[in-house]
């Protein structure tokens, strides 16, 4: 049977072919696997290395705890306030390597943030003015950023958004962590500065921003002689619309506060959900006057033994606002003190003078206030406070008719932590960690059992804020803590009289705290920071083609491959341009002097990390074009001449060739 034989041999032949394919190995992957297996064989013994580098065993242990080899990744992100830089620093833990600086309040030229593209509008929305003033809002391009706060769900970080405040200009910004870029700046219409922000409520319904230095609401002029009558503090409850990822100013409201200098704030959680706490100093309402021989504010404001912790029942305040009990001031609904005092939504409790730090414990049952000029951390009891407020059990009223709750009946106790206690964060074992500024230590104590001895760790030097891994949520991780020191003195190579700040990483896994790494911060003085588990953050790798990164949707004016064009309409010139390795289309643009030029430029790249930039020389323009991103650049071609335009991010071997010309023909005279 020949067909039989033929078929059999075909099958055999097929089998041989199959075997040949299966036997063929991907050499690249095989080599990668081999490389991953490691390459042992250090040239020197560990002991020799330690000797040569002058390291002791503790150093080596610290190195092993913090070293992140190439190709491996950190466990946590830190989002640090960039202080006077106005931008956010993103740092990896435990390596303490800087990952990114996010442009927020200050133009950031690498990201093309505020250099001619769509983000100009984000920065412009942060321009400030005085209410009732007819002039243009002031262009503000710096900030004194203080307190970053990650969005929360049920009191735990959800890794979606970051909110930051600008103390100097009373503003709050929203950073979207899907692309680590700033989407919104809201300008506080009432306060002249802020400090108690940005703090989120447990489900991020509100972002709280509390004023610092009192001023008339809306910042109108009023002489200092009218301080007690006209000057006020204010707490803004910015409504966050998570579905849009933006603060909705129209749904936001505020509470008028006495003209004490409100300081730090925190939102309650769990047992204290629905409440907010703000501490204050200068309840003396001193206004200085040093040139006239009056005492400076520093002494005028420190005469009383006690200042006031403000207790706000914001859920009740919200219902009062919704019931129409608020007044409209500078376009915002404000619950004034004549309502909030009698309604009991605002109360005061004494606190040791000039306190700092106002931190709710993970269980939401207590508030820890750092004494600053007092050696204690004072622990307020939420249950007691709620009962006192409900019974209106006041020991008196302040000049504005706000009830004052009795201090002794409101607290759980006080712990002596050292000279100059400021801020407190928590671990997962019932421990609190307080930064102690004057003494330059981190003080560890138990907020469950006040009797345990306080353990102290020296830090270098002048610790301000303190942060721990998810240490201000309902479920802190423990493990790591960072002391954010104001001074670094002898810690780093000298760089002139302006010294870097010093972030010091502390290991919390052992019986005692151990300092394991220093990181110089050389771009500003950070204030608060937060540390979040890395797997909670899931950023984009590339944008959907044509994305406007401010709206996070596909831009109707994006340019598409093959449809690039220049449209002229009188003195308006619109260019639809694409960028892809290694050319722009079009790469020649000629306009007339005085033309209004808009360039819609879209990156056609789809591969991870293939970023281009775009600039027109001398026009103060630069945008960053991550894969898929669209930017709309509008400007007046008011300067005739010949201007190269080119890609500003080294994108490819032909990057230098990724260029073209922008020609501005002079007007005929």
């Amino acid at each position, binding site marked *: 049977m020949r067909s039989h034989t033929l*078929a*059999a041999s075909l099958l055999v032949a097929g089998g041989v072919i199959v075997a040949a394919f299966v036997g*063929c190995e*991907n050499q690249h992957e095989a080599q990668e696997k081999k490389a991953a297996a490691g390459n042992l064989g250090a040239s020197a013994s560990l002991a020799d290395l330690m000797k040569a580098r002058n390291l002791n065993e503790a150093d080596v242990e610290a190195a092993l705890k913090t070293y992140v080899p190439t190709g491996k990744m950190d466990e946590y992100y830190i989002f640090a306030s960039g202080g006077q830089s106005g931008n956010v620093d993103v740092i990896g833990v435990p390596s303490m390597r800087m990952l990114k600086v996010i442009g927020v309040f200050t133009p950031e030229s690498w990201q093309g943030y505020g250099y001619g593209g769509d983000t100009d509008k984000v920065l412009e929305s942060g321009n400030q003015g005085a209410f009732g003033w007819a002039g243009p809002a002031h262009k503000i391009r710096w900030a004194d950023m203080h307190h970053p706060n990650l969005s929360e769900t049920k009191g735990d970080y959800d890794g979606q958004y970051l909110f930051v405040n600008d103390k100097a200009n009373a503003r709050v910004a929203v950073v979207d962590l899907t692309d680590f870029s700033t989407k919104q700046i809201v300008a506080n219409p009432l306060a002249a500065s802020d400090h108690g922000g940005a703090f989120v409520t447990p489900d991020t319904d509100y972002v709280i921003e509390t004023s610092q230095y009192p001023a008339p609401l809306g910042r109108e002029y009023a002489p200092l002689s009218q301080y007690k009558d006209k000057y006020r503090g204010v707490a803004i409850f910015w409504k966050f619309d998570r579905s849009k990822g933006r603060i909705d100013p129209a749904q936001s409201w505020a509470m008028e506060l006495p003209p004490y200098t409100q300081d730090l704030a925190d939102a309650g959680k769990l047992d204290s959900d629905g409440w907010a706490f703000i501490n204050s100093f200068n309840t003396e309402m001193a206004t200085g006057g040093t040139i006239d021989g009056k005492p400076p504010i520093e002494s005028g404001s420190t005469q009383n033994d006690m200042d006031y912790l403000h207790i706000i029942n914001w859920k009740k305040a919200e219902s009062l606002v919704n019931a129409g009990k608020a007044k409209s001031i500078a376009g915002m609904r404000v619950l004034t003190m004549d309502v909030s005092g009698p309604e009991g939504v605002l109360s005061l409790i004494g606190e040791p003078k000039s306190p700092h730090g106002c931190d709710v414990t993970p269980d939401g049952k207590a508030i820890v206030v750092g004494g600053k000029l007092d050696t204690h951390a004072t622990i307020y009891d939420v249950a007691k406070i709620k009962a006192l407020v409900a019974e209106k059990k006041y020991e008196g009223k302040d000049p504005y008719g706000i009830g004052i709750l009795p201090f002794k009946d409101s607290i759980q106790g006080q712990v002596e932590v050292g000279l100059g206690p400021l801020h407190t964060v928590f671990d997962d074992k019932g421990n609190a960690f307080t930064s102690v500024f004057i003494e330059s230590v981190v003080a560890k104590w138990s907020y469950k059992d006040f009797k345990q001895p306080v353990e102290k760790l020296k830090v270098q030097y002048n610790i301000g804020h303190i942060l721990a891994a998810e240490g201000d949520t309902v479920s802190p991780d423990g493990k790591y803590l960072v002391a954010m020191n104001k001074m670094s003195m002898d810690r780093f190579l000298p760089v002139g009289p302006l010294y870097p700040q010093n972030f010091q990483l502390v290991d919390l896994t052992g019986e005692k705290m151990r300092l394991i790494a220093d990181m110089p911060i050389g771009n500003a003085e950070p204030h608060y920071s937060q540390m979040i588990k890395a797997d909670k953050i899931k950023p984009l790798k590339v944008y959907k083609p044509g994305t406007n990164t401010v709206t996070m949707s596909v831009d109707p004016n994006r340019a598409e491959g093959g449809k690039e064009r220049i449209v002229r309409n009188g003195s308006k010139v619109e260019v639809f341009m694409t960028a892809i390795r290694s050319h722009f289309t079009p790469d020649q643009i000629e306009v007339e002097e005085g033309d209004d030029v808009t360039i819609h430029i879209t990156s056609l*790249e789809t591969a991870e990390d293939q970023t281009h930039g775009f600039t027109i020389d001398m026009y103060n323009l630069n945008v960053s074009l991550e894969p898929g991103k669209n930017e709309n650049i509008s400007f007046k071609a008011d300067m005739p001449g010949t201007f190269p335009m080119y890609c500003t991010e080294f994108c490819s071997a032909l990057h230098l060739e990724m260029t073209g010309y922008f020609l501005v023909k002079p007007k005929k005279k």
Partner: protein
Amino acid sequence: MSADEGSAERGKDGHVHLHLAAPKGIEGGGGARSWDRARWVVVLSGVAAVLLFAASFFRPWWSFKLYAPQYPQGLNLEISLTGMGGDVHEIDLLNHYIGMKHLATAAQMERHLAGYGVAAIGVVTLGLLMLAGKKLNRLVVIPALAFPVVFLLDSFYWLYSYGHGLDPKAPLHIAPFTPEMFGNGKIGQFETFASPSMGFWLAVMGVALAVVGTVVRSRVCASCSRAGTCGAVCPRLMVLPDAEVRS
């Protein structure tokens, strides 16, 4: 059990592997039941082959992986009968530096006709299996076998043609080349690895089943009462009951 005895005898012929598919006792007079079983094997293997061909139409046939330092995860190109998937955009982008045409312009006619082609091969394979007389019987397997072979030859043609039709005005000038179609290769900074993928293997399985069908079919014919008298087409449509089967 005569069927088993018959099976053992044939085992001496050295074609033991066919026993799984071939009905036992056709020649040994196993009766109508064995005939039915044999016919079913032909029908089912034919139908299964056609289904596998159809399935292969929807799966990628060939995959290319390209590795370079800046692509640690590698770039993927997956070729199917109707188009290609994976990092086509990125590969095109890289190819433009050496003046290679866009991948999407290759084999347009083939991709356009692929659906009809698979349908035709299915119909012809099944049709021949059912209808071919003794003279055509040996051809049954040819269209099925041609299916993956034509794909391989055509792919090779396009690889050759694209590697040898580089635009002389491209930024980088490189010598004409043919990308490796099997196993490891190297183009510029890229290490490449090419191998068949699911669609191809489905088609190979289809071919194997068509071969099985052909073999069983030829044995059914050999035992047919009209063996040697039928022409190009089997007048009894092998699948119909045959009252005159030698019994």
